[in-house]
C-alpha cells in the first residue's frame, strides 16, 4: 500500500533549496531519509518555548490558586480564573509538545484578546483600577510576544518576494504505492493526462494543449475553480514523468512520478514526489487550498485511487448506498467521505 517516507503532516522544510524555477524534474533523493519539521529559526524557537512554559506556569497558578491570581489581576471569580488556567495549560502543552505550534500560539493570541477585553472592562469600571491596569499592561506585553511568535511561525512575513515558491519554506513530499500492473501500463495510463481526474479527486479536467503543455482545472473549496498550465519536464516511457507549472500558474508546483519495477515480478512501485510551497504567497496558495492542510493524505489517497483504477477498473465506493437515519455527527463524517 501507499507508504510515506516523510512521515509527517505537512512535509518537511528544505532550507536553502535552489530556486524553484530552476529545479530539475528529478527529485533530490539524497534527501529522502532526512526528517525534519517546519523548524523556525533558533531565536524564534526559544521565544515559543518561553511562551509555552509561561503558559504552563500561569495556567498552573490560576488552577491551583485562582483567588490569588484573581486578586493580582483584579478579577473576582475563581471559576473564571480556573477556566483561564485550564486554557493556558492546554496552550502551553500544545506549544511545547505539538509539531505544528502555530495553532496553539494563535490560540494564545485569541486568549490574550479575550483577557485584554475583560481587563479593559474592569479598568474602565474603575474597579481596583491599579491592579487591573498593571495586569492590562502585562497581558498586552505578552500578547505582543504571542502575536509576534504566531505570525513568525505562520510565515506571513516570508515568501512574498519570489513569484512562485519561497526557498525557505519549500516542501517535498514523497509517497509510493505498489500496483499489480507493469510499469508500461501504469505509465501509459498516467501519461494520458486526461485520465488524471479519474483518480485525483480535486481535479475536474486536464486538457493536453500540445506535446508538452496541458491545461488543468481543479475544484476549489466553496465552488471555486482553479486553473493552471503545466508542462512536462521529463518523459521516459515506462519510467518517469516529470512536470512543473508554468510561471503564470495559480498553483505553483513541480513533481515527478516514477514507475519502478517491483521485485519478484510484483508489478510496479509508483513513486510520486511533489515540490511546492505551503506559504508561497498568492501563487502557491492555490495549491495549498487544493491539497488542504494535510497534503500527504491527499497524495496518498490519490495514489490509492490510481491503484484501484489500474487493478480493478473502478474506484470502490459507498457513496449513494442506503442507510438508516444519520446523526449530526454521522452527516459530518459523510462530508469527510467516511460514512455514506
Amino acid at each position: 500500500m501507499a507508504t510515506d517516507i516523510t512521515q509527517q503532516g505537512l512535509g518537511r522544510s528544505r532550507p536553502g533549496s535552489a530556486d524553484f524555477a530552476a529545479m530539475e524534474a528529478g527529485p533530490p533523493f539524497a534527501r529522502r531519509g532526512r526528517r525534519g519539521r517546519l523548524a523556525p529559526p533558533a531565536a524564534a524557537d526559544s521565544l515559543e518555548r518561553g511562551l509555552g512554559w509561561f503558559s504552563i506556569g500561569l495556567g498552573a497558578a490560576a488552577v491551583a490558586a485562582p483567588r490569588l491570581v484573581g486578586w493580582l489581576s483584579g478579577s473576582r471569580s475563581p471559576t473564571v480564573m480556573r477556566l483561564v488556567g485550564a486554557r493556558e495549560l492546554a496552550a502551553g502543552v500544545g506549544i511545547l509538545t505539538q509539531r505544528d505550534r502555530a495553532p496553539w500560539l494563535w490560540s494564545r493570541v485569541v486568549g490574550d484578546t479575550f483577557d485584554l477585553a475583560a481587563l479593559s472592562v474592569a479598568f474602565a469600571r474603575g474597579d481596583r483600577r491599579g491592579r487591573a491596569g498593571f495586569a492590562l499592561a502585562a497581558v498586552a506585553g505578552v500578547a505582543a510576544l504571542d502575536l509576534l511568535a504566531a505570525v513568525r511561525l505562520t510565515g506571513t512575513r516570508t515568501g512574498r518576494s519570489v513569484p512562485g515558491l519561497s526557498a525557505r519554506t519549500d516542501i517535498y513530499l514523497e509517497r509510493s504505492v505498489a500496483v499489480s500492473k507493469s510499469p508500461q501500463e501504469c505509465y501509459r495510463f498516467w501519461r494520458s493526462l486526461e485520465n488524471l481526474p479519474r483518480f485525483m479527486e480535486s481535479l475536474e479536467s486536464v486538457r493536453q494543449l500540445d506535446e508538452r503543455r496541458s491545461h488543468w482545472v481543479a475544484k476549489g473549496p466553496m465552488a471555486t475553480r482553479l486553473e493552471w498550465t503545466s508542462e512536462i519536464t521529463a518523459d521516459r516511457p515506462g519510467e518517469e514523468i516529470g512536470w512543473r507549472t508554468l510561471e503564470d500558474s495559480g498553483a505553483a508546483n513541480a513533481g515527478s512520478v516514477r514507475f519502478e519495477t517491483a521485485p519478484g515480478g510484483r508489478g510496479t512501485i509508483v513513486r510520486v514526489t511533489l515540490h511546492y510551497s505551503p506559504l508561497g504567497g498568492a501563487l502557491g496558495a492555490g495549491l495549498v487550498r487544493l491539497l488542504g492542510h494535510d497534503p500527504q493524505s491527499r497524495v496518498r489517497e490519490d495514489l490509492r485511487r490510481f491503484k484501484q483504477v489500474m487493478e480493478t477498473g473502478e474506484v470502490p465506493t459507498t457513496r449513494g448506498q442506503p442507510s438508516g437515519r444519520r446523526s449530526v455527527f454521522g452527516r459530518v463524517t459523510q462530508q469527510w467521505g467516511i460514512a455514506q
Partner: protein
Amino acid sequence: MKANVWYGAQQLRVENVPDPKILNPRDAIVRITSTAICGSDLHIYDGYIPGMLPGDIIGHEFMGEVVEVGSEVKNLKVGDRVVNPFPISCGGCFFCQESLYSLCENSNPNAWLAEKLWGHSPAGLFGYSHLLGGYAGGQAQYARIPFADVGPVKIPGDLTDEQVLFLSDVFPTGYMAVEQCNIRPGDTVAVWGCGPVGLFAIKSARLLGAERVIAIDRFPARLRKASQWADAETLNYEQVDVPEALQVMTGGRGPDACIDAVGMEGHAHGVFGSYDRIKQALMLESDRPPALRQAITTCRNGGTVSVPGVYGGFLDKIPFGSIVNRALTVKSGQTHVQRYLKPLLELIEKGSIDPSFVITHRLRLEDAPRGYRMFRDKQDSCIKVVLKPWSDVPTVEPDQAQENGRILH
C-alpha cells in the same frame, strides 16, 4: 426495503430505508432470501466494534437472487441464486491473486482509517463498521455487492438456502481455522467456544482427519451439539479446570492444535476474568482474551494456535513468552472466504456435511433485535439465528423441540 439498522449498543431497529442501487460497473444487487446473525455481529451489538455509526445497516452472512448486474459483471445474470462471501475482494490486487481475499488492498474505501488503527488496511467487509469500508450489510431485503464478478458463488437449485447459507462466513471460517493448523493423523485439536464457528471448526477438524477433538464451552446445549455432530469430547469450563483436564487427556503434552473460536468478549472465572472485565470497562483494554491465553498456554510445544475469533484492538497479558520459548505457531485472520466457496460447496453437495445443523432459530427480519438478544444471552439454547427477509409469517419459531430432541436422544 426493510433493513436491520444499528443505532448504538443494544439498539437495533428494523426500518424502511432506500433500496440499494448499482454504484459501480462491477456491482450487482441481490434480493436476499436468507440472512443470518453472526457471532461477530454480537460484538457490534454490544458496542465493542470501533468505527460504527448510528444508521449503519449490519449483517454479513447472506444469500439471495441476483436482480441487477452492473455493466462489467459478466459471470452473473439476473435470476442466478448466489451465496455471498462476507469479505469484499477485487480479484486483481496482489493479495487477491495470492488467494488472501480478506486482505484485498482495494475494497476498503476508508483504508486510511484502518491504517491508523492497525498499520495497514484489510479488505472491506459487509456491514462491519466504517473502519472496514462502511458497506451496507445484508440483514436487509436487498444488498449491493461490489466486485460481484469475484465474490458470489452460484448455487445449484437442489440445495436449500439453509444448507448453503453458511458458506458466506461461519463454515469457511471454522474450516480455515483448522486448515491452518496443518492437521496430521493422530492429532488432537482443542476448540474454545462452541458457537457456530467453533462447531464448524470441530466438524472441519473431523473432516481434515484429526484423531481427537475436544470442545470447550459452558453451555450444555452447545457441548451436546459438538458431541452429537462431530463426536467431540467435551469440557465444561464451569465444571472442570480446562488446562488440567487437557493435560490429563493428552498425556501431559497438550493438544497439537488449539483454536480460539471465542474472540473479544470471552468469559472467565477468577482473577483474570475480573481483571479483563474491569480493564475493558475502563477502556484500558479493547478485548477480553481469556480463551486466547488458555489456548496459548495449553498448546503442546511446537503446536499451532489458530484464532478465528474476532479481536479488534489491544489485548493485555498475552503470554508471548510461552509462544517464543515453546516455538508455537500463531495463525489468524479474517477468512479468505472466496478461496473455500467451491471446495466446501462440493462437500455439501457430496453430503459430507449439512451445515444447517447449527440452526436453532428461524425468525422474520423484523424480529432481528429479538434474535440478537436471544443469541447474545443464549436464551432458549440459541446457537444460530437465520432471518427471513421476505417472510410474512409472524415468527418462524424453529423446530426447537425437534432440534433439542435430536441432540438429547
